[in-house]
């Protein structure tokens, strides 16, 4: 904990210090009391920090140097697809014709942006095989919620009372969470020892109360469920819908279309699959694609081409309404569009082929010193287990993850999926070289040889070593409060 005393930005604040000088108003100034009713006014101004510009820049630049980012380190964070974000997309998204637009501009002056969004809708429809597209959801989980609201509207209109959503035990935690948020009861499906949806368990739990099966394919073990069509057919036979969590689309772009294996709805994570930046809580996006039958329920607005112009459709009788202000996280969508246009159909397929190749290469190295419970082949990611070294030496997955930081590698995802004890989930992505993959595997191998106490106290080179996670969750120390 070398520099735990780095001041917070609030502690650097000095009353009256400013970074900008606002020009005087060129319209008549009216007292705030005339503009806002008393109930909408705070008694006091918010306690914002007051700093000069260089202090702000130094504060945040200094914090940013502590980051492990894909621009600085190999980042094999399974399930998150932390692929390199080509700088070309940043440049294109920064063009004034895109970056300086305002959502309240007249539609006639937004035609260029609408053209991009309309084409992106069509591209996502083509990749998924599902023709109805909304670009509005702000992130993957928001896409899940949107799709479940669409499903609810669909069954309401059919007059069917369906209350349950099925999620496999390997699913992302967001799946059951979104289902609960949308008002459904969640039922967990067991996986077979091989890691696939257990058809017998599905049969037991499938009834006329089931609205949606949420499935991730390839799943979080990095396996393509070879029985996925049978799974979908059984859900459809009972009148239910199949939702594909598209988080793992990086494995199957241009190779398998979700509609072909039975998906009625899905979301994309452009910040994973189409390389717009993510992490650090920055904006993502979660476009949702649906089958023709579900298109009437899509949220609004939708970009449509009407009489050689692009227009926003603002009203549809069966739409679930708005899920996001304005038009979603447009900056993320524009980057995804640039990525897809740059690579084209053949390039996208190559992305997935290389992602799968890299993951299998790394698997072939790592399986010699860490158990990989689900076999010798994977798609874009695989899950190793530290259970064996925990049993023999007391070394836990978390210890290995923490020690990797000292060697300049971002840690893989650990302890997920929950079905694998001491899980270490590794996703190298397509842009990493053989040298990087070799170096990572060799480092992991060498770390495993280190003494237990050395591992248990790692990392040694980061500003904060190993926080007490239990105390942090139960009794967080707040260094600054506003009173």
């Amino acid at each position, binding site marked *: 904990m070398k520099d735990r005393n780095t001041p917070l930005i609030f502690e650097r604040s000095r009353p009256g210090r400013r970074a900008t000088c606002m020009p005087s108003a060129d319209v008549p100034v009216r007292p705030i009391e005339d503009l806002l009713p008393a109930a909408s006014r705070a008694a006091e101004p918010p306690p914002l920090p007051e700093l000069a510009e260089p202090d702000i820049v130094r504060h945040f630049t200094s914090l940013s140097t502590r980051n492990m980012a894909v621009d600085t380190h190999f980042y094999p964070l399974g399930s998150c697809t932390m692929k390199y974000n080509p700088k070309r997309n940043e440049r294109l998204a920064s063009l004034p014709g895109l970056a300086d637009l305002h959502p309240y501009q007249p539609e006639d002056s937004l035609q260029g942006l609408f053209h991009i969004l309309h084409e992106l809708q069509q591209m996502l429809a083509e990749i998924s095989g599902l023709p109805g597209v909304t670009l509005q959801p702000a992130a993957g989980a928001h896409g899940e919620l949107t799709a479940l609201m669409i499903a609810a509207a669909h069954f309401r209109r059919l007059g069917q009372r369906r209350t349950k959503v099925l999620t496999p035990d390997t699913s992302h*935690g967001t799946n059951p969470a979104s289902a609960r948020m949308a008002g459904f009861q969640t039922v967990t499906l067991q996986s077979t020892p091989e890691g696939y949806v257990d058809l017998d368990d599905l049969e037991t739990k499938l009834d006329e109360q089931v609205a949606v099966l949420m499935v991730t394919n390839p799943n979080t073990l990095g396996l393509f469920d070879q029985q996925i069509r049978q799974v979908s057919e059984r859900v459809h036979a009972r009148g239910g819908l199949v939702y594909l969590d598209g988080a793992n689309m990086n494995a199957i772009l241009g190779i398998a279309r979700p509609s072909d294996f039975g998906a009625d709805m899905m979301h994309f994570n452009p910040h994973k699959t189409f390389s717009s930046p993510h992490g650090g809580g920055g904006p993502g996006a979660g476009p949702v694609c649906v089958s023709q039958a579900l298109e009437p329920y899509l949220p609004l607005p939708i970009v449509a081409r009407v009489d050689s112009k692009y227009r926003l459709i603002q009203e549809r009788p069966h739409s679930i309404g708005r899920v996001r202000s304005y038009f979603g996280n447009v900056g993320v969508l524009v980057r995804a569009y640039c990525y897809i246009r740059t690579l084209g159909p053949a390039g996208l397929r190559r992305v997935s082929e290389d992602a799968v190749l890299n993951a299998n290469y790394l698997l072939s190295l790592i399986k010699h010193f860490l158990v990989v419970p689900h076999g010798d082949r994977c798609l874009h990611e695989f899950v190793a287990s530290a*259970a064996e070294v925990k*049993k023999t030496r007391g070394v836990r997955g978390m210890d290995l993850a923490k020690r990797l930081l000292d060697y300049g590698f971002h840690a893989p995802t650990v*302890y*997920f999926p*929950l079905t694998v004890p001491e899980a270490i989930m590794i996703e190298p992505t397509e842009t990493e070289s053989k040298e990087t993959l070799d170096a990572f595997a060799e480092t992991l191998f060498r770390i495993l040889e280190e003494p237990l106490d050395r591992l248990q106290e790692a990392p040694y080179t980061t500003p904060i070593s190993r926080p007490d*996670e*239990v105390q942090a*969750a*139960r009794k967080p120390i707040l260094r600054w409060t506003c009173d």
Partner: protein
Amino acid sequence: MNEEQLLYAPTHEWVHVAEENGERIATIGISAFAVELLTDLVYMELPEVGKELIQGEEFGEVESVKAVSPLYSPVNGQVVAVNSELPDRLETLSDDPYNEGWILKVKLAGDAELANLMDYPTYQKQCAEEG
């Protein structure tokens, strides 16, 4: 309580049944093996006294630094007591899972479903396969 004389659910809850004032009362907790798997616990949510439980259905949840895990009722019956100190002293679950770490007492609706539970040797076998 002697762990070798308890009954176990496949979802790692233990059950001890005793006669109290003419009622069949089940004391319920989670096994040492489960506590070890859950790792460091940070939060626990328990039902209210009076709640009806059904075998195999969720009655609460525990949250660790890794994940939130549901707790499943190993019996049918009505909750008559809750160890309300437990959520504030979660270390009790790992220090003494079979005594101080009890979670619920449930008035049994019947004995039939106890047959679905495992004895200690069978449960040990399950743990060996999972561990």
